[in-house]
């Protein structure tokens, strides 16, 4: 019977707790606080935080069979894996991000972008946030934090402010960084209303912020359908590596706009995206094992993330000012910052800042154009990185 007791004690996890776990518990508490009380992207951060908590507890039947961060957890004795070995396949096999994009497509109205195609360029400019940080990440070696070029690519995509795309690319180029990259991306997306306004005000004059834009023309159903099909085809032909994301995005959008498959479109907008979000979030969290998470590399990612958002914001604004030099219909540069994606937070920030300059100015719909263009742009950048480094 002492054997039994000894066996029982050895199987409690008390002896397996180390200081890194304790630190991670505090990180989790912080994430939960931000998610619940500061409403930082709670749909993702709550599952992520719970996954991270689980990763830093002495569990059984959870991570068996998983392989991350150089650590291989062996399978269970009966040859099966732990619970998250199976759930994580959704990320490992790159199923979850495209499925989330199906829902995002079904939730997105491309009307404002179609009505004002110039805003594609604002979404393009904002991708400089990604490339600028790519350089910055590569230069981090001079302050002692070295990233491979693959890692630089995975990290820099944080500047695209698009969760599923970041996870998709990170799984390809730097799977051990998925947790840090996803947390960084979602946290800064939630911080968009804090990060962007000072930059927006610094780079624009009061007069520019007061520009009123021509109201957008109505876009017919057929035009939206043609747009979805043609843009999907073009994107896939030019950047085949982005196929899974962009195919699903535009399939979802076509279902939304065609008006004859409402039951499918509603399922994509609700059941499908909700179910996948829970499992995606928890899977991302499970990679945040303290042993590997608490490194200078991870802190570096947090620093680079905020830089990426700032750069993307600035370059969107600069592009808007550049376009105003050559274009008759003036663009309010405040909508340039919406090119960062972070749908729809960034567009709302444009609206709020615009109304501060002129309370009668409604920029929201105009800002939705670069906002959704940024989603497409970032998916293409991910495809570019996968082509170059994959």
């Amino acid at each position, binding site marked *: 019977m002492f054997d039994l007791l000894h066996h029982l004690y050895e199987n409690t996890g008390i002896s397996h707790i180390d200081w890194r776990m304790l630190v991670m518990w505090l990180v989790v508490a912080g994430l939960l606080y931000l998610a619940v009380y500061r409403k930082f992207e709670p749909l993702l951060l709550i599952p992520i935080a719970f996954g991270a908590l689980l990763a830093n507890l002495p569990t059984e039947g959870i991570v068996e069979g998983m392989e991350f961060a150089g650590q291989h957890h062996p399978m269970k004795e009966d040859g099966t894996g732990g619970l998250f070995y199976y759930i994580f396949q959704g990320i490992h096999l790159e199923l979850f991000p495209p499925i989330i994009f199906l829902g995002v497509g079904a939730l997105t109205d491309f*009307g404002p*972008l*179609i*009505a004002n*195609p*110039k805003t*594609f*360029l604002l*979404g*393009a*400019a904002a*991708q*400089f946030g990604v*490339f*600028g940080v*790519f*350089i910055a990440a*590569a230069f981090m070696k001079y302050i002692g934090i070295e990233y491979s*070029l693959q890692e*630089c690519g995975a990290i820099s995509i944080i500047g695209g402010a698009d969760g599923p795309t970041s996870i998709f690319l990170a799984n390809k180029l730097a799977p051990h960084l998925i947790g840090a990259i996803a947390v960084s991306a979602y946290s800064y997306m939630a911080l968009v209303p804090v990060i962007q306004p000072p930059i927006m005000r610094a780079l624009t004059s009061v007069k520019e912020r007061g520009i009123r834009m021509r109201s957008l*023309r*109505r*876009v*017919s*159903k*057929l*035009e939206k359908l*043609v*747009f979805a099909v*043609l*843009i999907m085809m*073009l*994107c896939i032909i*030019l*950047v085949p590596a982005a196929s899974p994301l962009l195919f699903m995005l535009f399939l979802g959008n076509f279902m939304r706009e065609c*008006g*004859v*498959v*409402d*039951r499918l479109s509603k399922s994509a907008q609700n059941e499908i995206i909700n179910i996948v979000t829970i499992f995606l979030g928890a899977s991302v969290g499970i990679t945040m094992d303290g042993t590997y998470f608490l490194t200078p590399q991870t802190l570096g990612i947090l620093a680079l993330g905020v830089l990426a958002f700032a750069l993307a914001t600035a370059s969107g604004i600069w592009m808007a000012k550049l376009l105003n030099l050559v274009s008759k219909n003036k663009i309010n540069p405040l909508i340039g910052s919406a090119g960062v994606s972070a749908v729809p937070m960034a567009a709302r920030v444009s609206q709020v800042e615009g109304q501060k300059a002129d309370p009668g100015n409604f920029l929201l719909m105009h800002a939705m154009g670069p906002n959704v*263009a940024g989603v*497409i*742009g970032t998916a*293409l*950048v991910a495809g*570019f*990185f996968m082509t*170059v*480094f994959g």
Partner: protein
Amino acid sequence: MIHSISVLAQLAGDASAGPKPGGVVIVGFLFVVIVLALLASVTSAIGAWFTKQAAKNAAQAAAAAKSTAEAFSQSASAGSASSAATEDSATGDKTDTETDDSALMAVIAAAVHTVIGDRPHRVVSIRSSGPGWAQEGRRQIFSSHRVR
């Protein structure tokens, strides 16, 4: 497109030993900007075509709606039918500009008028019957109970 990028790419220097950060950034950013510019042009072209078509169709639709409405219901005041048609184009997003849909709506408006008469009314919503097997199946089963 590829050529014009390649000219700029020279600036980033020799890349014989695998991709270099500088090269990746210049090529990558230009690539993305050019692709999105291309998407912008295509979208503009689509938009231009549709704007022209929409103008043409709107005129045709108004005419069609009026004549059809009159044909169907002499007693119906043409006003109510055309107001329905106007509302149609105002409602936006949900209606496409095809002539036959507008005409159909005018027909329905006229028919409603014939039944309801002069009491004030308004066609609030006309929903095409969802054609899906399942939805359809269920709707049929329900409606069949009333038929019987």
